[in-house]
């Protein structure tokens, strides 16, 4: 294995995925906010709400198009850059992706055309239904991709088949109703709602500060503050914690986030801040709150949360067991009827992924010595300081959003958004959900390392057999293309916001197409 190929493939995946996810959260949330706004229009029949819906719809469209375009890359990247991964787990992982296309992408993409072009051809109710279906489609797509991603974090319902040298599905409902996937889904879409609500708040605040389009802006802020408060609470309260005690690898992720080197007696304390030291395997200057970690992590006073050192010992055991399974598979390759090998395989098959960790150091895991096995066991610890700080930053922002929307909710009734400092704060808040969301993804995926699929396939084995120049070519290509598009996108977004809720996008025709707003 050429480690440069692995690292570059990871870099490219991270770049394209994180870029893709700049557009997704706004799509997820804004689509539902459009439903709310248009519902008000259909119920009240007041034209102002049509203007509001169409205005945010225009911004939705600019954003949506890049989400779709960059999603294309994601759908194919598992094949182009992670071919062995695609072979090894495609039997399970491919299904949610295909269902996502069939159930969600078709719905959102087909309906979005009518949403934009069907205003004159559909009745009010029909158009609202179309908008609702767009929102449903985008959110369903998040569900399916998170079922796929959840399986990478907690691979249930599958086992290794030596005849085909890959993982195969044994229980599809376990894959579907994976608790990690469900927690991730709620967490991710709520984060998208927060992102959209913050965006609408910020843009509206800009109008209010300028005294422009105030009747659109104030109403939009009302919708956004209610929607945002509910979502911000949901992100944090129904956060990502619920799946962390399920498996060894999820436990490892939790231990790394908390920089918990040793198992503490239950209920464990939580480290608020500190300085994790990887070499010394300790956390300096730790400020701890007693009991809290045990309560959050296990929802009990007696549940124990394993520390990193404990989990490494478990990994060490599983590597030894995995080597036996690996040996059995190699014997089965020569003689498929070898019953002794089959029996050994059956006993140890759930650990075969751990033997593969050794391939980083030796071509044949059976030839690894104890020192190498210990090294491989320690490889199962993700980057503790990165996890520790990213999590604190993300969670801090999460609480910040609750405070901000709580304030907004109060302001809506108390001061009707007339306080200039609040409006300035709202503009300042615009980028923060994106920061929190990208941090969240980095946390989730760095926390999964060294695994592509937890306990099943190490990341370094998953890559395609490509060359370094090939991957550099595409990294440069994507960076140039995506960079250019990002600049254009942001400029168009700003131009559209500056222009405001006017009804025609052609400068030459804007006078004629100008829709005067009804008085308040």
């Amino acid at each position, binding site marked *: 294995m050429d480690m440069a190929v692995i690292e570059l493939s990871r870099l490219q995946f991270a770049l394209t995925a994180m870029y893709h996810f700049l557009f997704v959260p706004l799509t997820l949330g804004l689509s539902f906010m459009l439903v709310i706004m248009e519902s008000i229009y259909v119920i009240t029949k007041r034209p102002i709400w049509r203007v509001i819906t169409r205005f945010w719809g225009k911004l939705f*469209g600019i954003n949506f*198009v*890049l989400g*779709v*375009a*960059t999603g*294309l890359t994601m759908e*194919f990247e*598992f*094949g*182009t*850059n992670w*071919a*062995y991964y*695609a*072979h090894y787990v*495609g*039997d399970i*992982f*491919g*299904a949610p*992706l*295909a269902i996502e*296309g*069939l*159930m969600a*992408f*078709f*719905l959102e*993409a*087909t*309906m979005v*055309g009518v949403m*934009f*072009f*069907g205003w*004159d*051809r559909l009745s009010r109710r029909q158009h609202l239904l179309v908008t609702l279906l767009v929102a449903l489609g985008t959110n369903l797509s998040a569900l399916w991709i998170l079922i796929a991603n959840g399986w990478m974090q907690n691979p249930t319902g599958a086992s290794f*088949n030596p*005849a*085909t*040298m*890959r993982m*195969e*599905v*044994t229980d*599809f409902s376990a894959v579907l109703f994976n608790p990690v996937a469900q927690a991730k889904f709620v967490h991710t879409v709520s984060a998208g709602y927060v992102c959209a609500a913050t965006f609408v708040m910020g843009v509206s605040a800009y109008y209010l500060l300028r005294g422009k389009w105030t009747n659109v802006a104030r109403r939009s802020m009302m919708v956004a503050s209610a929607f945002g408060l509910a979502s911000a609470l949901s992100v944090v309260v129904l956060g990502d914690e619920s799946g962390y005690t399920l498996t060894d690898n999820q436990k490892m992720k939790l231990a790394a986030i908390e920089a918990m080197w040793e198992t503490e007696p239950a209920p464990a304390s939580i480290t608020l801040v500190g300085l994790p030291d990887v070499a010394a395997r300790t956390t300096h200057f730790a400020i701890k709150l007693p009991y809290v970690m045990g309560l959050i992590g296990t929802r009990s006073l007696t549940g124990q949360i394993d520390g990193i050192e404990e989990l490494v010992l478990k990994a060490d055991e599983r590597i030894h067991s995995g080597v036996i399974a690996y040996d059995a598979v190699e014997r089965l390759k020569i003689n498929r009827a070898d019953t002794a090998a089959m029996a050994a395989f059956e006993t140890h098959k759930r650990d075969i992924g751990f033997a593969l960790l050794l391939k980083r150091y030796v071509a044949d895991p059976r030839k690894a010595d104890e020192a190498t096995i210990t090294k491989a066991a320690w490889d199962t610890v993700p980057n503790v300081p990165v996890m520790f700080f990213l999590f604190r930053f993300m969670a801090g922002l999460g609480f910040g959003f609750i405070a901000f929307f709580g304030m907004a909710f109060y302001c809506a009734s108390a001061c009707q958004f007339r306080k200039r400092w609040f409006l300035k704060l709202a503009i300042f808040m615009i980028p923060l959900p994106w920061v929190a969301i990208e941090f969240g993804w980095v946390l989730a995926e760095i926390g999964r390392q060294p695994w592509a699929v937890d306990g099943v396939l190490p990341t370094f084995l998953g890559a*395609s*057999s490509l060359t370094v120049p090939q991957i550099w070519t*595409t990294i440069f290509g*994507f960076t140039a*293309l995506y960079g250019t598009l990002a600049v*254009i996108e942001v400029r*168009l977004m700003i131009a*559209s916001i500056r222009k405001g809720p006017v009804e025609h*996008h*052609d*400068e030459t*025709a804007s006078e004629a*197409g100008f829709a005067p707003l009804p008085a308040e």
Partner: protein
Amino acid sequence: MHIPLDYETLRLIWWVLLGVLLIGFALTDGYDLGVASLLPFVARRDEERRQVINAIAPHWEGHQVWLILGGGAIFAAWPFVYAVSFSGFYLAMFLVLASLILRPVSFKYRSKHADPAWRSRWDMALFVGGFVPALVFGVAVGNVLTGAPFRFDSDLRMTYEGSLLGLFTPFTLLAGLLSVAMLMMHGAAWLAVKIEDGPVLERARRFGRGAAMATIVLFALGGVMIAKGAMGMRLDGVVDAAGPSNPLMSASVGAPGGWLANYGAHPWMLIAPIAGLVGPLVAMAGIGMRRGWLNLAGSAAAIKGIIATVGLSMFPFILPSSIDPRSSLTVWNASSSHLTLFIMLIVTCVFLPVVLAYTAWVMKMLAGRITLGEVRSNPDFY
């Protein structure tokens, strides 16, 4: 879990569904790729270009999902094919993705400024976004027919021994041009039912006729090259159609001219190449008689025939290896597991009709020809 269909049948069904998806993609997104490739030729003034663009603008997003679904379904049902083809044709895939990404943003962003330089830049991007994918998809299919240079080791890890330039041979280029001609014919046929009579439609008819003729010539020429060339494979020894999906457990050998063997054994299969040759003639007749729908039906028949010809000629092969015949992927050795194929079939049977139903509803709601008058007055138009 008891699975009511046997593995062999499911593999066969999924081979058919693979064809259905590819044809679905070519039929629907084919409009958009074809129209985008025609854009600089059939529309000259800005208004004309907007008329052409708005003929596909509300539909391209839905159409493109056929490609995404194709990717997802190949991943789910034929993971070996997904892994080998996408990583093997790595830089070609990048070319396709980059140009496809240009396409949607061109639609959306072109209209945002009235500046002619801005607009002509996006028109160029739109042309690239239509022409390049059409060409590269064709070249890729050409390479599937000739076989790709890959092999598996005993862990079923694939190594690929080709290069980007190696993908372009006279035969594969011919396949690429055929794909471009076919989709241009299809794009012109879409314009024939989607825009009002006028100079743009006249030009579309002219280009449509030329593209239909080119399709016939290139398709026939491709057939001759397959008959005379060294392409072709056959399975060797006992074939276990319900065996494990492991290419190394089956044996394939090269058989020059082998891609024609199926037509001898099953003469009904000839219907596909016949449709591929007659379809463009029908399209030309439709153009001559000024019947847009006949034009479109002929073009659609040609696409179905040409794509089905590739599949039927190669059956049971899906992606042969040109350097290690034994690594070749077939219907019997490259699928996902019995259970996955079955579950995915159920999902498809439930959702594909729903998709087709609402796609038809959307088409109906947005039916009608795009007029220049509407281009001038509708604020929602690009």
